[in-house]
């Protein structure tokens, strides 16, 4: 990957390309910490799913798989738009970078709005984690635990979506100032990698939570 000499590199790197490669390695290491963190939750999910298979089955019936599916498509699309944004940054198409970033933010918002609709219906029905659970027609014991996992996992994921959108807004502002081009686009690349991970986590969350049966 060739990098133009327009961007100043920090004193302890030999070249802008050297700095770019280092930043990218750092990002991958960071992503591995994210995977380990979510990994802990997934392990907990599988353990309790193993202990209470019927309860998890019942829990998933309260989720609307159609909303989950729409959100999956929305996130996959957003991964595409941000990848396109990186592509255009490499080619130096300023406008396309901005538009694709904006589209990604919009898609992220759509995801969060749908999540909000889902959350509200659960909260209204009293399908809440642990002690706060107040739904009365539950068939299985400990159904609250399903919603503990549902809210912790999707909540932590939702937090990542929000953080990702914030990062994209920041990158978008810098893109508007014309800071990126074929010579320097590390922040876009970094945010894109992060966003792909957020997408990937959802790809696992969707079948695990919504499609238990």
């Amino acid at each position, binding site marked *: 990957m060739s990098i133009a000499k327009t961007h100043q590199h920090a004193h302890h790197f030999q070249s802008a390309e050297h700095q770019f490669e280092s930043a990218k390695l750092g990002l991958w290491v960071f992503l591995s910490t994210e995977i380990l963190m979510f990994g802990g939750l997934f392990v907990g999910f599988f353990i*309790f799913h193993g202990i209470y298979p019927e309860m998890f089955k019942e829990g998933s019936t309260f989720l609307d798989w159609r909303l989950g599916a729409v959100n999956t498509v929305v996130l996959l699309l957003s991964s595409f738009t941000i990848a396109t944004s990186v592509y255009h940054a490499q080619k130096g198409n300023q406008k396309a970078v901005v538009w694709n970033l904006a589209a990604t933010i919009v898609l992220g918002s759509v995801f969060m709005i749908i999540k909000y609709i889902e959350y509200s219906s659960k909260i209204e029905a009293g399908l809440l984690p642990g002690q706060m659970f107040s739904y009365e027609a539950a068939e299985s014991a400990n159904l609250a635990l399903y919603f503990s996992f549902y809210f912790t996992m999707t909540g932590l994921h939702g937090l990542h979506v929000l953080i990702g959108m914030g990062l994209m807004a920041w990158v978008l502002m810098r893109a508007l100032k014309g800071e990126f081009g074929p010579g320097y686009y590390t922040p876009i690349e970094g945010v894109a990698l992060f966003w792909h991970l957020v997408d990937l986590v959802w790809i696992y969350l969707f079948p695990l939570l919504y499609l238990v049966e």
Partner: protein
Amino acid sequence: MHGAHSHNYLNHEKGLWSWLTTLDHKRIGILYMISVFIFFFIGGIFAMLIRWELFNSGSSDPAMYNQYMTFHGAIMVFMVIIPGIPAFLGNFFLPLQIGAADVAFPRLNLLSWYCLMVGAAVAFFSLFASGADTGWTFYTPYSIQTDTGTIWLVTGAFIMGFSSILTGLNFIVTTHKLRAPGMTFWKMPLFVWSLYSTAILQVLATPVLGITLLLLVAERILGIGIFDPRLGGDPVLFQHFFWFYSHPAVYIMILPAMGIVSELISTYSRKTIFGYKAIALSSVGIAAVSFFVWGHHMFVSGQSEIAGIIFSFITMLVGVPTAIKTFNWVATLYKGSIRFDTPLLYALGFIFLFTIGGVTGIILATIGTNVHFHDTYFVVAHFHYVMVGGTLMAIMGGVYHWFPKMFGRIVDDGMARITFVLIFVGFNVTFFPQFVLGAMGMPRRYADYPVAYEALNKISSIGSWTIGLGFLFALFVIIHALKRGEKAGDNPWGAMTLEWQTSSPPPHENFKKQPVVTAGPYEYR
């Protein structure tokens, strides 16, 4: 020697603000040094309070005792031993040893220090919120039920985790991307190898602690029930999660210490390190195995027997790479031109004490004996031999070894030797009786004990004062050296690694000219 007016990292900029906003890895290392020393002092006070309470049979205030024990453990683990070597000595010397001008991400490096500071502030806040009394392990269900401010301590530990992750991330990238021309992986100093292995553990294990503590906070505030059997949850899951981090964390504490010992042994016996590759790879080996041994903390927690047997076996495997290191150090000393400077005394102290800590670890890894020794003072003695006898010995050795490089002054060797004698003797007097107490069945973490245990406890408490005295004297020796110490040359020990090729203290940019590596780090003869 460059005289008093030479340009170096200490006088590159002036004023407190320049320190608090510095991006220089050396200055950040010094910031870590000051904070770790302060935390060590506070943690030490709690240790003294523990030994004061245990001096006599009978207890004046068991609730207070639980607080001492909790804060001693939490401070020493999260604020002293974990950041102790990597973030302090590692920050300062990793870039120098590989011939780099800085770590890969200087801003993240500074951020990591602020994470530690904020985390520590939140943790100490619990002192004002009726304290914390769960022990540093925060086991459920008690951590959910206690009406003390334990949750602040948990939150503080969570924030400090980011500090550890950022340091690890920085070191991995720095080691991969910023080595000087000619420095292949097989030409890296062993301290760098050990920091690299440690960094992998910091990056892969800490996030699991993060999510565990986050779940604990949610459990406490929202009652989500994942660790609560009344809601279908499982308290033992917390133990699994906790030790999945905290066992590798033990190696976050000890691996860099082993790296320092490798440096010291080779330098002060003026001999090529014996089995360089074996020592380097055994660091990676220990790091890899450490992820699969956490169950040995839970032999009596209702874990299945077969799981117990597997964990027991894998735990014993840790002994293999550890013994490889120990034998190689001893083989390095053999027929070396040994100089008994203080750093070597600490390195030898490390080998002696760590071997005891390691061998008793094998005893504890054996399921049958573990059941007898479980949660007794035998365990307390074992892990203090590893963490204090190991890690703190190495930190002290490392500080005396690198002091001339960091501050351009020589530590008074006569006084430094006295610190070693006080700490080494005091340590054994404190903790060896605890092996015996444990074998006699004295449980750990209790504020009180029957009169039969009193004599050995008195010896142990007297030993602890000797250690305390030793460390206070060590502080004095360091301050004395800072003010009055003779000017050090660039390479007072005649060592071969790159940090000794630049001036003392190093200039802001580390090396006046980019070093090019042609030889290995220990080619003495």
